[in-house]
């Protein structure tokens, strides 16, 4: 990255970060939660971008990773008293990583469409398991629990407020973004992108493509699970609705709307979609998905690079 564009980038980054930090102080409660939710869904969408945008693998399985993160956190918060924040995160990450490994093992042997369908089917498998295994997962009603306090063992322990929760989420999402950014720019990330460009050639050069794919899926699953943990903490419940493949579908929508392969794009896409949904649901009550769906289809046809790609070209002119 050239010196000038690096400066522009980091300035923009800092501005946005500052805005997000200030947000809970100036916004009313509803919008405060809204921004926090955008961040969480943005994290989920970012995790999905690793696969879609960087490795070229369309996955509909993210609802499983997200859901397992959510339920994993729930497990920690319900089983271990007193509820511990870090334990929740740990359980959630382990859960989603485990599922990611399972899914990765089966799906990475398949190409393109078959991979997409298989991830979809797997995410539905987990949905059915969670939905029917009522004794463990609470079935249809899900699980509810108390929010753990923000604690650093030995230092302090203070319950979350709406503002501090937002800042915590912001910190986690920002850290995740920076980590993912670092990874995509590393040699590993370069190999992933090479797989996206031309898998056969990458294999011919000598890279163990399947292994890279498995790692990519696990990485993606890990951060998706993290998003699930954050969601559980914010909302204090885990429900099977979030493991339903619709969530995977919406994640892919965020990616496409925002622009795949940009990491930031999906967050923008999530924001755009959620805002659109909010706006439409004021006028169309529950059927907001009809106009939103039509807009989505139109974007797939006419703006395939997503909002970010569109802005980039517009700015370059």
């Amino acid at each position: 990255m050239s010196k000038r564009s690096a400066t522009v980038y980091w300035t923009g980054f800092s501005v946005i970060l500052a805005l997000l930090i200030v947000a809970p102080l100036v916004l009313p409660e509803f919008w405060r939660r809204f921004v926090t939710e955008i961040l969480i869904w943005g994290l989920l969408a970012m995790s999905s971008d690793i696969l879609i945008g960087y490795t070229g693998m369309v996955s509909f399985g993210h609802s499983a990773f997200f859901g397992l993160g959510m339920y994993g956190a729930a497990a920690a918060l319900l089983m271990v008293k007193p509820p511990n924040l870090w334990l929740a995160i740990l359980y959630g990450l382990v859960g989603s990583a485990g599922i990611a490994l399972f899914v990765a093992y089966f799906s990475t042997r398949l190409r393109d469409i078959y991979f997409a369908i298989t991830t979809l089917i797997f995410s539905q498998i987990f949905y059915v398991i969670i939905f029917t295994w009522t004794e463990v997962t609470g079935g249809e009603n899900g699980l509810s629990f108390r929010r753990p306090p923000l604690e650093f063992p030995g230092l302090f322990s203070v319950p979350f407020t709406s503002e501090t929760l937002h800042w915590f989420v912001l910190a986690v999402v920002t850290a995740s973004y920076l980590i993912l950014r670092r990874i995509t720019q590393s040699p590993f990330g370069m190999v992933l992108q090479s797989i996206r460009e031309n898998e056969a050639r990458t294999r011919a050069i000598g890279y163990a493509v399947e292994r890279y794919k498995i790692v990519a899926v696990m990485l993606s699953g890990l951060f998706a699970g993290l998003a699930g943990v954050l969601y559980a903490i914010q909302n204090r419940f885990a429900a099977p609705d979030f493991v339903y493949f619709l969530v995977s579908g919406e994640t892919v929508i965020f990616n496409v709307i925002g622009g795949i392969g940009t990491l930031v794009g999906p967050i923008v896409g999530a924001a755009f979609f959620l805002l659109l949904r909010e706006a439409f649901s004021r006028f169309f009550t529950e059927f907001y998905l009809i106009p939103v769906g039509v807009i989505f289809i139109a974007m797939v046809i006419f703006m395939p690079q997503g909002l970010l790609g569109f802005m980039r070209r517009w700015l370059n002119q």
Partner: protein
Amino acid sequence: MSSVLGILQAIPYEELLIQTLNGIVTGMILALIASGLTLIFGIMDVVNFAHGELFMFGAYMGVVVLAATGNFWLALVLATLIVALIGAALQITTLRPLLGRDPLTTILATFGISLVLQNYALWQFGPVARKIQEPFTGQFTLFYLEYPWYRILIAVLSAAIIGAFWLFLKYGTYGIWIRATTQDRVMAEAMGIPVRWVHTAVFAIGAGMAAASGVLFGPLVGVNHAMGVDWILKAFIVVVVGGMGSLGGSIAASIFISLLEAYASIWVSPAQAVIVSFVVLILTLLFRPTGLFVPTPK
């Protein structure tokens, strides 16, 4: 010896028979849905996420026509035609522009269509399930139990529709066009076949088949906006297990999986019997990823 007799006596024969019938009936409906899906995928590489919604919309059109005319058969025919036209319109407006682009885009576009169709149905018809009255009631006795004639009709009609279509593919004039386009789209064009219209026609046929399944299946359950979702998932599993693009494979896989599920439901709840199809999928992916019924793994 007595233990063998004991086991033989413990096998619930009537239940097995009933479930065999149930499995075949469900399997035929699934086969009809999956055939449309396989057809569309085989000829234009489009994974039609909206296929379940075409099934659902067919059922609703059946409800509407039935309410207006009181005739089930008219409802079946008209619903099929209406949805076929809708399918053609959808293909022309949203899928044609995507020809030649990344296959991902068609998955996304059809996913968008499924969202729109589902919510449109919810908006127009409301959340309460509607009922389609079967054209005749009446059951026949099977051992000590009664089995509805209508279910047998479903299986027979579905088989007839698939059979008729297969004949059309093999011997009809335009059947050759469809088969040629599936094998080599470019050369088919060079032979004067209007490939774009063949694509539209196939999509319409697939949509019509899904709609017919919807109307046929309607009387068994309530018709509501979400009924397509379970079927699309099963249909996808069937298509992968049967070998993507293989019509015969999809049909065989449909019946196979439906039978297994029906048998499983003797011992576990229907919601859990679904796990069977998942297990079959996983085993297929592990050992015969090109499809269970595809002769030679490539």
